[in-house]
């Protein structure tokens, strides 16, 4: 496969090489800035070929992303980024195709394209900026807003139950799902790098802060004071430990998880569940996706990362197979096929 080769260029690159000449226009303090910087840093570290990379987006604050990347870019219409990206990847599998989108864009109006892209395992990377609110339309609740939230369109509190994007994606058999927070650039870079290497659809949910309409919604897991007790950073092959003093962990209790304290009741690290991101079975990843505060910590990192053929590869190998069998297409022969007669 020449993919990695064509996407790698020799000279050392810096974040600047991936910055376009357009002024970035997000609100000051918006979490999107950190995400943009992390993506650009990741690309610089990987030495990505700008000319071979396409950023595709839908509508929303996050969807302005392509304008700020010095790569090819396509700012499409509300909800449809995954569908457009699918077409791009099928047309030219050697392109590196990334989707920048938001919770409204991908889980509401674009929910259908989102789940079907994942189901097919098309080789695109989907970065969802989840701020649990509509920013660009000025503050209505989104499909990930917590129930009861007061917004412009729900002055008496929202009634809708919210999606857990991880469960949604895993339900569609996601081959790669990871969750990060916009306040941890190092973790973002690490996860984006893993996503970049994944064959098939890689979905990264980024818990992003909207300072204007939903400030501090992810506070419990981003705030310095609280975050270590409230987040569980998953690492493949490592026990599920968390807490400021790294003294808490997860064990199985019947069919559910249970939080335990190390040292209590003779529990040691050896008793804890060990994360296995490569499990064929979806069950562990799905159970992790159900963990929410306050009973459980919020898992971050790669939940699932399994190898499956990418859709575009399957398309090409099917075409190749048919060509081997039938020979390359011959228009004259095709037009003259079926029952013909001479007058």
């Amino acid at each position, binding site marked *: 496969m020449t993919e990695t080769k064509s996407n790698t260029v020799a000279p050392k690159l810096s974040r600047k090489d991936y910055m376009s000449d357009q002024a970035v226009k997000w609100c000051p303090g918006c979490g999107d800035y950190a995400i943009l910087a992390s993506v650009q840093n990741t690309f610089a570290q990987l030495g990505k070929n700008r*000319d071979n990379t396409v950023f595709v987006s839908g*509508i929303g604050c996050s969807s302005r992303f392509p304008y700020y990347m*010095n790569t090819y870019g396509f*700012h499409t219409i509300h909800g449809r980024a995954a569908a457009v990206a699918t077409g791009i990847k099928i*047309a030219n599998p050697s392109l590196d195709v990334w989707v920048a989108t938001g919770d409204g864009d991908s889980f509401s109006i674009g929910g259908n394209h989102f789940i079907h892209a994942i189901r097919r395992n098309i080789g695109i990377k989907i970065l969802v900026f989840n701020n649990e609110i509509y920013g660009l339309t000025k503050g209505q609740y989104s499909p990930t807003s917590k129930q009861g939230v007061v917004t412009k369109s729900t002055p008496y509190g929202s009634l809708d139950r919210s999606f857990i994007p991880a469960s949604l994606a895993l339900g569609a058999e996601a081959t790669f799902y990871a969750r990060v927070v916009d306040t941890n650039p190092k973790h973002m870079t690490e996860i984006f790098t893993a996503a970049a290497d994944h064959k098939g659809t890689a979905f990264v949910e980024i818990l992003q802060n909207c300072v204007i309409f939903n400030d501090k919604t992810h506070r419990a897991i981003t705030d310095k004071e609280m975050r270590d007790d409230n987040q569980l950073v998953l690492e493949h092959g490592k026990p599920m430990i968390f807490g400021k003093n790294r003294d808490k962990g997860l064990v199985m209790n019947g069919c559910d998880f249970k939080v335990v304290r190390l040292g209590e009741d003779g529990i040691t690290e050896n008793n804890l569940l060990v994360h296995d991101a490569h499990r064929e079975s979806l069950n562990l990843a799905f159970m992790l996706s159900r963990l929410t505060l306050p009973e459980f910590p919020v898992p971050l990192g790669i939940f699932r990362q399994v190898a499956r053929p990418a859709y575009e590869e399957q398309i090409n190998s099917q075409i190749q197979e048919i060509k081997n069998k039938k*020979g390359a297409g011959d*228009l004259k022969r095709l037009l003259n*096929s079926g029952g013909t007669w*001479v007058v």
Partner: protein
Amino acid sequence: MNTQHNNKTIEKVTIKFAGDSGDGMQLTGSLFSDESAFLGNDLATFPDYPAEIRAPAGSVAGVSGFQVQIGSIEILSPGDMADALVAMNPAALVANLKQTRKGACIIIDFDAWNETEFKKAGLDHDPLEGDIAATYQIVKAPITTLTRTALKNIDLELKNKDRCKNMFALGMVFWMYGRPLIQTEKYIKTKFASKPIIVEANITALTAGYNHAHTIEVFASTYKIPSAPIKKGVYRQISGNQATALGIIAASVKSGRNVFLGSYPITPASDILHELSKYKEFTVKTFQAEDEIAGVCAAIGASFAGDLAFSTTSGPGLSLKTEALSLAVMTELPLVVIDVQRSGPSTGMPTKTEQSDLAMALFGRHGESPLPVIAASTPSDCFCHTFLAAKIAVEHMTPVILLTDAYLANGTEPWLIPDISDLPNINVSTPDDHEGPYLPYRRDEKTLVRPWCIPGTPHKAHRIGGLEKQDQTGHVDYEPENHELMCHLRAAKIARIADSLPEQEIYGKTEQDLLVISWGGAFGPVMTAVKKLQAEGKSISLAHFNCINPLPKNTATVLTGFKKYIVCEQNLGQFRDYLASRFHHIDFLRFNRVAGQPFMVSELREVFVPLLEECQK
């Protein structure tokens, strides 16, 4: 051949095969057509099938019909009224009697003539009662029994034997019209090559039907239809949807770009998807999307990445695609959306034909969102106009809507296979090498077309999208003057396509009494009606349009010098109103039908004759 027989030579005949959805009438009809085409007749077919896959057996809703007109003269329509009807059950008779000429020969399966079947057809009496026997020549053939008898030595379940009764009926019709059984036998042998017993059963039933008609002299007359004086060359039968698929592949070959089809199944367009998905050896990528929107959006993505992109649909699907079409207008990417029109609004009559999506194709988008609209005339003409639509899309960097319809899609006709070297090339624009940063919206001075610069092109990375573009740079721009300029540029780009379109033709002389105007799939019947009247010396001509937007450059000249103008279309006057808004000085009359069926030549004639008489007053 039995010499005592009254054997007449006729110019043309219309035959309808009708039965239950499960009776194989579509196959029977196409085999008759193929055999006739092979004999050198010109012909046109019209499969008319129900929306339900298997409506209750024996019910009128479940009747499936196949009409074919064959002739020793030019045949452009499947015929108004049947001269012969095959009705495999009472429901088929009831459903088709109105469309059957008085005096016509009606072959019925008399084994299906009983109370049970009458009831299934919703009848409380035998439909043959009354003066019907005096009005038509009814041939009561116990087709089921005769088929079973013919197959008595073949080791097949009764159920499977009964499935051969359509072949028995076909055999009878073959004898009546002096057709050999060659092509049909060949078809059966190939089709069931792996099941010799089925081959034997079908051919036995076919021959038995033929011999039965011969031996017992069931028909008052038999007919000869000599071959038609058609152009020399190699022919094949083709339906509109097949021709569309072939047009797509031809455009791929001539442009050097791979085909991407993003589509969602919808009647009557799905066959284009089915057909194209067979031709992967041409690197055709068919993508059955999760919905209509994803189909067109994926096509837009594929176009951005350099594929020759198509999305196929029918009216309700086109509604869903309109937002994406405006994105393609804004980003100026090549794309062809093919709308196989059907009767609307809403789900309407999904298997029936209409021309009522024209206004939506022209105007059904938000913003100032102009795009070319092209329409095909006949089943085989879908090939040429699909090719033209793709050529316009690529050479003018624009989405194009191609309108066909259910009648063209399913209808078939003999097609003189074109020489591929006669097809023009499709020229793909390449990004220019000017100094400084890449300008994705720098235009060709003459055509106003921007280059197709696909991702992967070195040093030309740029961003496009739905937000208003700055002239030249393509950057996001909200300046009032820029938006004004860009709206005018996009409109002018489409208008200038007329410079490269063929001129509008007139069939007949200019400066006549009546100019008949039609477009798209109305061609066959309208042309037939006009030609007939011309042959009678009437002062009538036809202007049939395929390029709807932009209109051919000489349209104003074509619409000059006639006493009266009448626009005939299968909607309530959409093209008529479009022309009226452009040519204010002309009083366009209209003839409209929205019955889900193609025009009948006779009804057109009834409209034209009084108008011609008025002109003479």
